[in-house]
């Protein structure tokens, strides 16, 4: 069986509150990054607030509906991003939240590698029937990356984002278990 936590460029690690907070407090200052990732108006949190937030989550112990990871490069073990899988346990559907906070690592295949690991974890370890995500229509890089990973566009909620005085759509994508198995047949 393959190593679930290792890809070609990155590997997964535990989301350690203090380490994660040190990076996130910097990443949040990159408004382009945050605006590509989120829908809420941007706010700046202290490193303490971020650390406390992550710690609080772990206080509750294992939660079967949430799996979050820190992502590090294989070469230097540098923390570059994260992803989280949020499960609807009843319907066996996982929502993905994924991001590379370190700008230097954009457009170099790291995101694609991360998504590959993420989907493999979702389908072959968590056994879900479906993985879904949303992205802003103006996030073209992500759209291409997700299409390459096998996601299909399922629609767009019209003009639900207002930024810089302009209204844009949110795109919604999904990949079914059968589709992922077909694409990863011999290589699950």
């Amino acid at each position: 069986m393959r190593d679930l936590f290792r890809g070609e460029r990155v590997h997964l690690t535990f989301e350690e509150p203090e380490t994660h907070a040190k990076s996130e407090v910097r990443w949040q200052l990159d408004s382009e990054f945050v605006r590509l990732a989120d829908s809420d108006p941007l706010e700046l949190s202290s490193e303490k607030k971020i650390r406390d937030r992550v710690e609080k989550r772990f206080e509750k112990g294992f939660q079967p509906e949430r799996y979050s990871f820190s992502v590090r490069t294989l070469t230097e073990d540098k923390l570059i991003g994260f992803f989280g899988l949020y499960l609807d346990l009843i319907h066996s559907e996982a929502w993905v939240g994924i991001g590379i906070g370190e700008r230097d690592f954009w457009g170099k295949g790291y995101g694609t590698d991360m998504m590959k690991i993420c989907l493999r974890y979702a389908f072959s370890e968590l056994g879900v029937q479906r993985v879904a995500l949303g992205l802003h229509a103006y996030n073209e890089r992500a759209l291409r990356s997700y299409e390459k990973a096998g996601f299909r566009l399922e629609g767009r909620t019209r003009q639900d984002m207002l930024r810089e005085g302009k209204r844009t759509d949110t795109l919604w994508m999904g990949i079914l278990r059968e589709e992922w198995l077909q694409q990863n047949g011999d290589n699950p």
Partner: protein
Amino acid sequence: MKDIFTGKLVRLSAFDPDEMSKAFPRWYLNSEYVRLLNSSARVMQSPKAALKWMEEEVGEMSPASYFFSIRTLADDKLIGELGLDVFNWSGRDAFVGLGIGETEYWGKGYGTDVMNVLLRFAFTEINLRRVTLTVFEYNPRAIRSYEKAGFRHEGRVRQMLNREGRRWDELFMGILREEWLELNDPTSAGEWNRKEMDKNL
């Protein structure tokens, strides 16, 4: 349209801690009932202590826990309790615990009917792939009832119980979704009748 909470003899209704804390003292005074009862550990408590706990657990509405009271269709009488605990999301498996506290309803098919309704709920609403239960070897009535509902014997924990000066086994029984689907039409309770639905709003 038949719904998923209704069987042939009984229906599942809300587990009301207030109502249950009044019924439990009667049921649990019956030592035979207590010794036969096969429910997960949570209900093995004094009623007063159970009330607060019941309110919390039932109120939490966790996707892993479901509580029901059992009422007769004939006269809406409260006759027992039922619980479902998903302990394994990966395998989509849950423990079921069933107790019919009103003894005059034993041996008349009520247990099997409850189980049938519960299995429909487990396989078509919570989407489980398995349901598991444990039952004591000295409870042949329940064993027969579960067999009739489709459960198969999967194993025994030997000499786990110590009662009346001798040892007894605890039996594990289970039913798979495929097995249940072979015997039951998943849509027979909730066939959404398009014509019916379209005139409703």
